[in-house]
């Protein structure tokens, strides 16, 4: 655990009155290693370690706490600065139907999260959501979303076309006409370097007003999290991020990298395959998870 390593390398601060470059050097090395092992991007680690150093050096060593505790607090604070200090909600206080679009890499958990989110909106927010699948590529993708919509008992807009843009436009009309206040669009998984598939998302957004584009990130995502998040945000535009598979033991450093590069809030996280396994994101809990 990073915190244990910090504590042991902090014994050096005992008897010192001020934090200096020298007496935290070892702790900073441990932090760097711990963050890399947590899959935080190399460049984000560098930046974070620099800001921890800046926030620490020259500070008086507090007598009331152990040096390790003092430093862990500084580290935790710098992590929270990146992750955000408050929970941010979906931008769906609009005239209905609010449209949410799920985007992300293949297998990240978009379809499952779409269904979980619809259940959340229905039960916790007393909304009347429906879903549509714009994934015309993956075998049985539409059937998968339809089965989940039946499980969580929300509306399902049947596909009207083989054209993704038409599917989304028609879904919006149907959602409006059928009195739904929220439409969740599930899209196919895609690589951020697949220009035509990124263009597909841009085209959807040019024809349908998307109030909330949510980037779904697998908590096991490695160093490329920074490039994936940056491209989806720069090219398509996202309003928020959701993490999945946090019921595993992935430390989830990808969350830090994605937030760092996009400055878009992490709003939800998935912690299981069942439809109730969706929670509001709490930055402080993520910080302790990354700290290990």
């Amino acid at each position, binding site marked *: 655990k990073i915190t244990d390593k910090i504590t042991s390398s902090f014994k050096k601060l005992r008897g010192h009155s001020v934090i200096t470059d020298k007496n935290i050097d070892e702790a900073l090395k441990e932090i760097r290693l711990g963050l890399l092992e947590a899959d935080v991007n190399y460049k984000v680690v560098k930046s974070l370690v620099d800001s921890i150093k800046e926030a620490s050096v020259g500070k008086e060593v507090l007598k009331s706490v152990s040096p390790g505790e003092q430093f862990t607090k500084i580290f935790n604070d710098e992590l929270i600065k990146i992750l955000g200090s408050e929970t941010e909600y979906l931008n769906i206080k609009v005239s209905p139907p609010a449209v949410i679009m799920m985007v992300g890499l293949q*297998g990240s958990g978009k379809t499952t999260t779409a269904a979980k989110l619809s259940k959340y909106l229905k039960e916790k927010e007393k909304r009347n959501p429906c879903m549509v699948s714009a994934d015309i590529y993956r075998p049985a993708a539409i059937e998968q979303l339809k089965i989940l919509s039946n*499980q969580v008992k929300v509306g399902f807009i049947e596909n009207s076309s083989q054209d993704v843009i038409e599917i989304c436009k028609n879904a919006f009309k149907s959602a409006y006409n059928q009195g739904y206040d929220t439409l969740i669009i599930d899209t196919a998984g895609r690589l951020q370097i697949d220009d035509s598939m990124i263009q597909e998302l841009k085209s959807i957004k040019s024809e349908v007003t998307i109030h909330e584009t949510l980037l779904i990130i*697998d908590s096991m995502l490695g160093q490329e999290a920074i490039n994936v998040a940056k491209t989806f945000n720069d090219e398509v535009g996202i309003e928020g991020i959701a993490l999945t598979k946090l019921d595993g033991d992935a430390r989830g450093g990808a969350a830090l990298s994605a937030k760092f590069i996009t400055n878009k809030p992490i709003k939800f996280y998935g912690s299981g395959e069942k439809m109730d396994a969706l929670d509001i994101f709490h930055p402080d809990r993520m910080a302790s998870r990354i700290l290990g």
Partner: protein
Amino acid sequence: NRKKVVIDDNTVNELQEALILSDVSFNSSERIIKKFKDGLKNQETEEEVNNEFFLGILQKEISAMLDRDDLNINFEPGGLSVFIISGVNGSGKTTTIGKLANLIVSEIGKKVMIVAADTFRAAAISQLEVWAKRVGVEFFSNESKDPSSVVYSAIEEAEKKDVEVIIIDTAGRLGTNNDLMMELSKIENVIKKQMGKGPIENLLVLDGTSGQNALSQIEKFKKSINLTGIVITKLDSTSKAGFAISASYDYDLPIKLIGVGETLHDLLPFVPDDFSKALFD
């Protein structure tokens, strides 16, 4: 015209950074760089000593860590070959099975049956059935919610139909879920009882975009079942799957296949030289 090879710290740091950015674990990168630097001591060369020169040496070293003589897919010499495919949720198991069935049919000419033993996830059976139809192979599924029972019935059916290879699709699962890991070892045990021996291939499908958690998965799956190899998918992404080095070297598992896309033909044999070159692209 031989001169001594000298490398500066900046270049070493850049090479290590490249490894880390490729999802090579920090510890692996330290060991690789140390061995690389030790190997350069007292080395002389007639070649130009530049970045290409260093990359070439580093790539050879990494390739050697990935190279093994058991990189091939194995088949049962005298009877039914049973393959189990397992891995974390969304890693690409079902798609890989479609591709693998295609590879076996077109390149080896054996009769294949694919078995839908993911009895849990919405539309998992339908998804696999689409792949079976695309490839033109036998497909087995039944109403049972117990994957072990599906496998048992599938093997009985396969023997009736002179199937030579059965490939079993399982539900995604996290290594940290004890119940699901027990379910997987139960499937393996059913096969052992029925066939008199374990599956000839027990492949772990790893998402190529993962970071260090891939190693934790290998560790947990290895504890529950007798893995024979690894498939790394999604190498058409910008991720480099540097964890493969530790997977192969520290966990002693051959990487047999790589997934490089979403169509039927996007499954290739793992080639250590190609992989180590791509790490630095």
